[in-house]
């Protein structure tokens, strides 16, 4: 057990254990912080920047998922600026690829869509980039649609860290980054994929979906990964 210190979270005094992250503490205290790349059970990458918070005394913003709490921190999670920035990040997500909720298999079962509602994003002011993205339906059980990929890399991490196959990775860089299987080959011909389906479960959007699903009946269970990892730790 680490030392217990007190912090201020949105004006409320809290006693917390040192070594935990701000995100952990927020979740426990029932403070609603949006996340996209973060998933319990996977390594933390701090990539989506949705969970940034303000810490009194610093001009910088801190991602809650990677920042540990410190004694006497005064944390603010819901300032006007933070809300505006989060909304803008969600707009950037939508404008980056070809997200059309109305025709998406993940409609009403999509973390990105939920997020847009939560942060109050009612329209996108930035020009859509309309990149040319393919759909890979070569796998017998599932489909990868790059048009809906937000590059959160949950699939890459679950495949490497939990399944141990490392089928997925990211190629290229910047806005030209793409998730790939093996040597950028059709997923169906991958020599490393074990068809475990974990990547499909953790994908927050309609980028990875089981062929058996159709609009309206898609359900994903990303929470299962956290449980799996926790059980493994018990046995270790």
């Amino acid at each position, binding site marked *: 057990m680490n030392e217990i210190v007190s912090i201020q979270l949105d004006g409320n005094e809290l006693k917390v254990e040192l070594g935990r992250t701000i995100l952990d503490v927020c979740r426990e205290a029932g403070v609603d912080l949006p996340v996209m790349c973060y998933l319990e059970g996977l390594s933390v990458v701090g990539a989506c920047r949705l969970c940034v918070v303000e810490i009194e005394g610093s001009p910088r913003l801190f991602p809650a998922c990677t920042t540990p709490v410190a004694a006497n921190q005064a944390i603010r999670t819901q300032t006007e600026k933070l809300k505006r920035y989060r909304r803008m990040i969600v707009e950037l997500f939508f404008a980056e690829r070809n997200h059309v909720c109305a025709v998406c298999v993940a409609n009403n079962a999509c973390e990105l869509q939920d997020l847009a509602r939560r942060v109050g994003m009612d329209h996108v002011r930035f020009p859509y980039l309309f990149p040319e993205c393919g759909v890979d339906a070569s796998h017998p059980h599932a489909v990868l649609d790059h048009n809906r990929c937000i590059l959160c890399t949950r699939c890459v991490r679950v495949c*490497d*860290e939990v399944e*141990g*196959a*490392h*089928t*997925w*990775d*990211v*190629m*290229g*860089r910047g806005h030209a980054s793409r998730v*790939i*299987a*093996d*040597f*950028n080959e059709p997923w169906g*011909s991958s*020599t*490393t994929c*074990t068809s475990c389906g974990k990547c499909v479960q953790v994908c927050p959007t309609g980028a990875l979906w089981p062929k058996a699903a159709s609009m309206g009946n898609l359900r994903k269970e990303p929470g299962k990964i956290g449980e799996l990892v926790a059980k493994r730790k018990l046995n270790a």
Partner: protein
Amino acid sequence: MARQYEMIMRHSRNSSGTAEPPRTDTRYKRIAAAMQKHQCRPDALIEILHKVQDAFGYLPMEAVRFVAREMRVPPSRVYGVATFYHFFSLKPKGKHNCVICTGTACHVRGAQAIVNEIQQQLGLRPGQTTADGKLGVQIARCIGCCGLAPAVVLDDQVLAKVKPGEMVETLRARVGGAR
């Protein structure tokens, strides 16, 4: 993690996939020797890819597969690294290569005019190679020769204070020279 990966490789549906590269090719021997030198440690991946590019002038997929297999690095990771770094090319370059520096100093001193002139006169945009493979045109972020701006590297030779028209003539001579 590495052991699991190895297991999967062994049990994978169509084993290694490709035919063994010609082991008699001295270029593969050189690459294999370099991997030996680093004991196939995965952290040497970038060093090894440099060796591949030195040997072939680019990264042929066959050689990339060879490296992944010998070093036991997952294919997608090798491919991800090879495409992250712009120094590596998965496409063959031209027999002659013209790299136009587009660093800040070259930009303010007219690098764009060189790019435009080559495009208009020779029909080559940065990243393209002529159909016969004789000439490739690339751009570099900065070659650090800002005193010579605008600079162009033609087949490893730095040309200083380049004028667009002269550059096109030089390229025509180089390609026409059929060396």
